């Protein structure tokens, strides 16, 4: 493969996603759509991180919303309690999430399958419980207001501005994830996914690679959490709760495990769907559950890989 073909093959999905971000607003009739778009890209950022962990390394996390919570409360507590600028708190939050992931990941990533699931679930709940009960810092169950992000002396607000910030960051995160998967670490992770013992026999430091990807995925979630808090201007401990973690996992599985592009699709479906279903009032939850079930039964590889398989079949 020539260098040019390689470049094209790797850059094509990124260009495609960037094009989606740029073209989509042309079809937006109101600011409300910018808001939904921004929420999709913010969620998708966290989902890409989780997908690296689940789809590529094959490790389940039922507590990823915990990192979302750490990121969200960093940009809330930092400026309010310490007067630190929001953008700095965003970075500090990401580093803090990485550090927590390092400390927690070392012991629990030894666990496998459902045991890892329950351990991460426990971690996520611990974060949510602390955020709920340390009311002096976090405002308790009612949450707290988040000061707006200031960049270059300007207050960042408005759904359209956030749409572009979230979209650009998502494209960056998307590119980073693609490159990571093509790196030696990425290949090692895929080997671990297929068989941990075989990977170890090949000389891969399994524990270290798993820890690395856990930290990276935690930082993705943290940045997404910070964005969410800054965008909404208000944050409650629900962001770190069990249902938040489940939603992230659902987005990964629905879009397609191991498909980075699928992360965007999964996030889009589960952010947009509840908005559409509000028309049905009390039937909303039942329909949401039903749709998730139907999707999973008929597109069991996830939306993107299933469609890709059909397209490939036609080509042949």
């Amino acid at each position: 493969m020539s260098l040019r073909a390689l470049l094209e093959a790797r850059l094509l999905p990124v260009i495609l996603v960037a094009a989606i971000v740029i073209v989509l607003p042309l079809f937006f009739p109101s600011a409300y759509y910018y808001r939904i778009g921004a929420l999709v890209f913010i969620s998708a950022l966290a989902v890409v991180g989780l997908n690296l962990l689940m789809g590529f390394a094959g490790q389940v996390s039922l507590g990823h919303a915990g990192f979302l919570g750490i990121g969200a409360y960093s940009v809330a507590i930092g400026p309010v309690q310490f007067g630190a600028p929001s953008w700095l708190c965003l970075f500090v939050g990401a580093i803090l999430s990485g550090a927590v992931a390092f400390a927690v990941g070392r012991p629990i990533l030894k666990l496998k399958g459902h045991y890892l699931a329950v351990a991460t679930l426990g971690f996520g709940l611990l974060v949510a419980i602390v955020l709920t009960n340390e009311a002096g810092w976090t405002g308790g169950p009612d949450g707290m207001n988040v000061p707006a992000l200031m960049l270059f002396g300007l207050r960042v607000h408005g759904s359209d501005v956030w749409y572009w910030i979230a979209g650009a960051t998502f494209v960056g995160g998307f590119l980073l994830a693609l490159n990571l998967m093509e790196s030696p670490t990425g290949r090692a992770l895929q080997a671990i996914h297929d068989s941990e013992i075989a990977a170890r026999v090949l000389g891969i430091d399994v524990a270290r690679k798993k820890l690395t990807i856990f930290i990276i995925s935690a930082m993705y979630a943290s940045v997404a959490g910070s964005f969410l808090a800054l965008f909404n201007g208000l944050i409650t401990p629900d962001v770190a709760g069990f249902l938040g973690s489940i939603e992230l996992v659902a987005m990964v599985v629905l879009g397609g495990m191991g498909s980075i592009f699928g992360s965007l699709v999964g996030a889009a479906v589960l952010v947009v769907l509840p908005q559409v279903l509000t028309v049905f009032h009390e039937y909303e939850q039942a329909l949401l559950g039903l749709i998730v079930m139907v999707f999973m039964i008929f597109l069991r590889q996830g939306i993107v890989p299933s469609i890709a398989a059909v397209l490939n079949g036609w080509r042949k």
Partner: protein
Amino acid sequence: MAELLQFAFSGLTVGAIYALVALGFTLIYNASDIINFAQGEFVMLGGMTTVFMALAGVPLPLAALIAIIVTTGIGLALHRLAIEPARGASPVVLIMITIGASVFLRGVAQIVFDKRFHSLPPLLGAEPIQIGGASVLPQSFVVLVGAGVIVILLWLFVERTLLGKAVIATAANRLAARLIGVDTRRIVDFSFAVSAAIGAIAGILITPITLTSYDMGTLLALKGFAAAMLGGIGSPLGAVVGGLLIGMIEAMSAGYISSSYKDAVAFLIILIVLVAMPQGLFGRIKVERV
């Protein structure tokens, strides 16, 4: 001492319910490798259906029976309509289906029933009994005895009946079971039905104490899953011990440390146990084949 006894009784009562939910997880997991997150909704359905049947004028025992039958039917339908068609999908996808089912059942429950809290009259009256300085609701004994009876019946069933042996064979090795003529699909059907029935009974037993509402299932599924994992997934003994342990830890930490951190203490202990014993308390060590 009276204080300790008081906490122990409330811990045992809640723990017995966690144990029943964990047992439901274990039954389905053993037959099919699926973690059924709709298990908590079975508990909710049992309680809510009984409440609304009773409100409609049906005598309580009959209402409870109808609730158990309805929930069992829903458990069977869950397997036939949602799990069976996705046979062969990866475990994560199957778990997602059960999570979708739990959201669906919750959604249906808030339409068919309502969003309020409901209670049932306790079986043996509401006057607390004094034991060693601790006051215990008679319903607590009903819960404990009920849970004990279910565990013993289940144990007798798997040990003493042919169908029970088929369940064990399926749990041990699905392919081998099929080879010796066990209809494993029927066994999975059966385990979904029994899990649903156990969940419904748990829901009916606990409603006089903790009340019931359409969204009570999530937290119970969480605790039941944690209990099953603490005990070691696939081990019925582990499920019962895990459930009782979590109930006890919660009650003790609520009493002696802080009630708002009781869940935190429970999960912290689960984390510590799992780090020390990665297969749970009674789980078998699985050897990975390359």
